[in-house]
């Protein structure tokens, strides 16, 4: 385990609208094995009623993933702590909005964290940094490294995920990372990578489909 080992500063230019996305019936909708775990669902139900013990348990289960995401995006452990704190307060207040049919609790919590972190970058002076600083090195861990997915999925499945992601062609993975971890739009990715917009769209589409096909039903 590391404490915010990432070095790159990544500007981000827009925020993924988490609440809107998660209020839609379509996002993270459960498909076969992709249903949220019963335990997480029960914990969030209890959190929605003001159960602090359930909230503490939810923290223990998901704080590593969430802090890892915040660290990776912000590259600052202090800011990552602030984001984690804000995100958990949001979960405390809005746990009732979580719908297990729309996805796993871990995905929900990670996306809330990701959006808060990117929102913070947008509001800071780091936003003025040029996009060419984004993604100098890959956000994705090497296949042999312990990842945040271990805390959620366990060792075997985390390895499976890592293998699927590191197995993507480099150009596809780069475009996906710039979108998810740096918050760049398709146009910004196109400029950053000096590639036509159509090429970027195609890379992202192919990369995500490949990931989906390799992981669907196996997590």
């Amino acid at each position, binding site marked *: *385990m*590391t404490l915010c080992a*990432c070095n790159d500063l990544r500007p981000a230019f*827009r925020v993924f*609208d988490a609440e809107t996305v998660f*209020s*839609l*019936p*379509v*996002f*993270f*909708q*459960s498909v076969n094995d992709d249903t949220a775990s019963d335990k997480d669902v029960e914990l969030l139900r209890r959190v*929605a009623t003001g159960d*602090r013990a359930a909230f*503490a348990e939810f923290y223990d289960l998901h*704080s*590593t993933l969430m*802090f*890892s*995401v915040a660290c990776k995006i912000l590259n600052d*452990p202090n800011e990552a*702590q602030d984001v*984690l*704190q804000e995100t*958990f*307060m949001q979960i*405390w*207040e809005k746990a009732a909005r979580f*719908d297990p*049919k729309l*996805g796993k609790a*871990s*995905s929900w919590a*990670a996306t809330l964290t990701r959006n808060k972190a990117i929102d913070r970058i947008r509001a800071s002076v780091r936003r003025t940094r040029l996009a060419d600083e984004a993604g100098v090195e890959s956000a994705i*861990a090497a296949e042999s*490294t*312990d990842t*945040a*997915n271990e805390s*959620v*999925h366990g060792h075997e499945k*985390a390895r499976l*995920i*890592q293998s*699927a*992601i590191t197995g993507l062609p480099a150009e596809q993975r780069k475009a996906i990372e710039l*979108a*998810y971890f740096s918050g*760049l*739009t*398709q146009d910004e990715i196109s400029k950053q990578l000096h590639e036509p917009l159509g090429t970027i769209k*195609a890379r992202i*589409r192919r*990369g*995500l*489909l490949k*990931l*989906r096909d390799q992981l*669907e039903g196996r997590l």
Partner: protein
Amino acid sequence: MIDERMEEQAALHVLGALSDTEARQFKQAMAADPELQAYVARLSIATGALAGAIPAAEPPPQLRAKILAQVGEKQKTVSLPERKFRPLLWWGWSLAFGLAIILAAFNHNVQPLREKVVAQASQITSLNQMVQTLQAATNNLQQTVLALQETNKLANMRIAMLSSLLTDSPKAVAVSLWDNNKQEGVFVVQNLKPLPADRDYQLWVLDHGTTPIDAGIFRVDDKGNVRVEFKTKSLITDAGKFAVTEESRGGVASPTIKNMVLVGG
């Protein structure tokens, strides 16, 4: 059929890489297209995995205590339906104002009577009667307040009439009564066509009018009638609408929009 362009938009959408305008347009397209919704849902498997594919970083131990302490200080607020007119509050103030007048009148009248109590016993009796009358009036006001409190409880009830979308069962009708506090409801259907053995009706509560939440399956009798008590599989915050779809036996995870038979709110 989802074309390649729409697949690209879906991929950009789940990564948050669409511009605000594009994202709005995509959401509109998605809202009207169940196939696109399912497609996006499957793509989210990839983004969920992506989030954790980074080196693990443990938060400092003291942060846990700090966050839990903050939660301890901050009581959860339960949101109630917004009401333009708040009769309970109004009556509360009215009651207080009325009592203040009563007390003022009582003090104003009783004090001089104390000085003349021996000589004017009949007047005291009269005043006592007046006090009793006012106490009765106060009791009535309290009864009214209690009744209004009951009315306020009803504000958490949602009653909806569902009408038929079927050409062969145009008289089918249903009423749904939902108690948001108890998170349970009663559903009454009339004149809905009976289904073959391999099909079921499935009830959905549309939370905030958009998010379909499974409320269970049911069948109707030979006359097309049934009364069922139901609970949802997820917490409902705002039962905006109700809908019934015809599904395969046992129900499904997501409603089949084209098989919607009743809807209303």
